[in-house]
């Protein structure tokens, strides 16, 4: 193709005929071959299941058969199900507990560890190391911490003759227990994102501030924080989308209990579709989660677009 173009372009002046130069941006059907593998998997693993899920959500279906069309019955049942409504609230509560904490602790750690010392490098590695663990290992570690009578927390409280809070079984503490384990697990990514943002702030601004006798607080408030605003929003949005999909920690630490107080939407979907075989209603719940995450993603789009305009 490139050879043909070259010959045509070089040959044209020789015969004195004006040939319009080829538009290299013109659509070429053969380019489709390059994206075909991606499109194949995108269609079969994402687009098809997306529409199949919608189709299932309006049918009475179980794991082994797809039954009759029931219209919006599954959605009506869903919104009459106290456990589903509880799981929606649980998911929002969990996002509320984890996302701001992750952003603030991540920022704090990044500010503390943004220096070129050996200790800072070691600590950065240490704080990030929990992120590489699988959810099973993380929950195992935290179960050992929380378990009554013999757990780490119980042992420490025992030294002072006190009873450790029951983070796995107390209705008011169970979700907080899961949130603590999640924050410990996920803190690495926000910290790294903030670190990379901090390192992009030009040093001369700080030098100018130093010449103006600005103190540490003024430097942080007027230079550092405004410079990393967009990273802050990015961290918040990434974490909202991630934490909305809570499943493993809740399943492995509390099984959604006590009294469904730690059951997130994904666990509700799993329970309904795969343990009760009510695939139609499970699909309807999945569609609701899809809508919620879509709203979060749209918010991300709107917020970042507006910020872009201002910049």
């Amino acid at each position: 193709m490139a050879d043909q173009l070259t010959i045509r372009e070089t040959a044209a002046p020789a015969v004195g005929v004006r040939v319009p130069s080829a538009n290299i941006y013109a659509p070429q059907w053969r380019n489709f071959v390059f994206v075909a593998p991606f499109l194949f998997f995108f269609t079969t693993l994402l687009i098809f299941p997306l529409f199949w899920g919608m189709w299932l959500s309006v049918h009475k279906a179980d794991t082994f058969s797809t039954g009759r069309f029931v219209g919006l019955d599954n959605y009506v049942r869903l919104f009459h199900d106290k456990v589903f409504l509880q799981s929606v609230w649980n998911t929002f509560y969990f996002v509320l507990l984890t996302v701001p904490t992750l952003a603030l602790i991540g920022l704090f750690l990044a500010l503390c560890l943004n220096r070129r010392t050996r200790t800072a490098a070691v600590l950065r590695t240490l704080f990030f190391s929990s992120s590489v663990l699988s959810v099973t290992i993380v929950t195992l570690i935290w179960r050992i911490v929380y378990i009554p009578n013999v757990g780490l927390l119980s042992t420490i409280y025992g030294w002072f003759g006190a009873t450790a809070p029951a983070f796995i079984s107390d209705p008011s503490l169970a979700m907080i227990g899961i949130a603590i384990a999640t924050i410990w697990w996920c803190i690495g990514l926000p910290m790294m994102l903030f670190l990379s943002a901090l390192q992009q702030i030009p040093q001369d601004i700080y030098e100018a501030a130093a010449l103006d006798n600005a103190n540490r607080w003024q430097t942080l408030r007027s230079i550092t924080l405004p410079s990393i605003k967009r990273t802050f929003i990015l961290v918040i949005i990434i974490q909202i989308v991630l934490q909305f999909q809570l499943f493993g920690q809740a399943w492995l630490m509390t099984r959604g209990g006590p009294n469904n107080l730690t059951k997130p939407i994904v666990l509700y979907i799993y329970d309904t579709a795969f343990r009760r075989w009510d695939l139609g209603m499970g699909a309807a719940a999945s569609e609701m989660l899809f809508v919620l995450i879509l709203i979060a993603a749209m918010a991300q789009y709107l917020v970042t677009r507006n910020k872009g305009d201002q910049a």
Partner: protein
Amino acid sequence: MRMKTILLAAVSASVMMLASPGFAATELTVQRFFGACDADFGTNTDVSKAVGECGIMTSLINKFNADNPDVHVSVTTVEWPGYDQLTAQFASGDAPDIVTIHESVLSDYQSKGLLLPLDDVLKSVGVTPDAFTDAARNGATKDGKIYGLPIDSWTMLYHINMDLFKQADLVNADGTPILPKSVDELLAQAEQFKQKTGKPYFVQNLANETALFTRNLYTYLFQQGSDFFADPKHVKLNTPEAKKVVEMYKTIFAKDYTTKGLDYGGAINAFLAGEGGVQLNGTWVVGDYNAQSETNGTALNKGGYAVYPYPQLFDGAHAQYADGHTWAVSAKEDRTAEQTAAIGKFLKFFTDNDFDWSRTGHLPAVKSIITSDQFKALPHRDTISAVAELGRSLPPEVERQFAIQEIIGEELAAATSGQKDTDAALADAETRINELLANL
């Protein structure tokens, strides 16, 4: 050329030698729960040396493989109860040949045509349905056919730390524990126990637990003659009988007559460490606990270990909830005659060796074993054999019994701990179960 021929011949001969055992052995895939213990029993074929569910099951399968060189059983161990994986395997057409299924769950898979009726396979190896106890045979029979080889009947029991019972003056002159005969007696004895030992009467795994609550409720509803599943598609739980049971457990919780916040493993450790008088756990720990009681220095060795069926606390007929484990066989169209014959051998092996399995504490499913002197000579069988008569299960037509168990467990846990009003919890449990059963 000659060299090449010799080489080729040598290679062919070695390939044949390597491959020949593979050609002979029929492969069977077996999937089971009961835990993994390969470090202790991975190569053990002497079943008499094994203890506990996991040890005995692992050793039995090892022995089957050793005794039957023409069959090779490969085992996948799943976390109890493993039905999520099994359902997914059935849905994707990749189910194991043989799998452990509770009698209470058989109808879920049988009603979808996913299990093979075993009558013909069992007949071909000389095992007839009358070989099994009534409870085991009835539990494994659906629509007049046997859909699982019953290997046991199990139930929940009162596992008792006799040292603490002695401290609490709850021992008869003949050395047997004093057990309550009514709800009032239970609460009075629990109070006495707490006063004299400073420890809770019950060791229960209440942390995010559902099965225990449900089994307790079923048992005490049976004891009041409540026919809560008269219609297998419709449960009646918002009843005075159910309320009595919940109120009893609520008092036990509120007055600290039970451990709190322990999960299953935690409760076992607490009982073995002497943290309470009675552990509510199943038949499957009798073997392990008895072994502990024979080990010097343990809490159970101090004053002894006793185990009894649940006491009769209400006015109805003495009964308690029971279930059983079975080996079920997946229905596969492409199974060869050799594979079906190998499955028959496997099932026959487990019928013949049911005594070894009953050493776990489960009651044997085979009639000749439950009446044998060998079984009766096992420790504590004089007290727990009564369960064979007392055991009752839900009507076999009730589907999704594990999902129902989850719902009852969640609601009762909330009611017992005071998070939810008793009436509201029972009403919600009833509504949720009926909604589930109405949408099968």
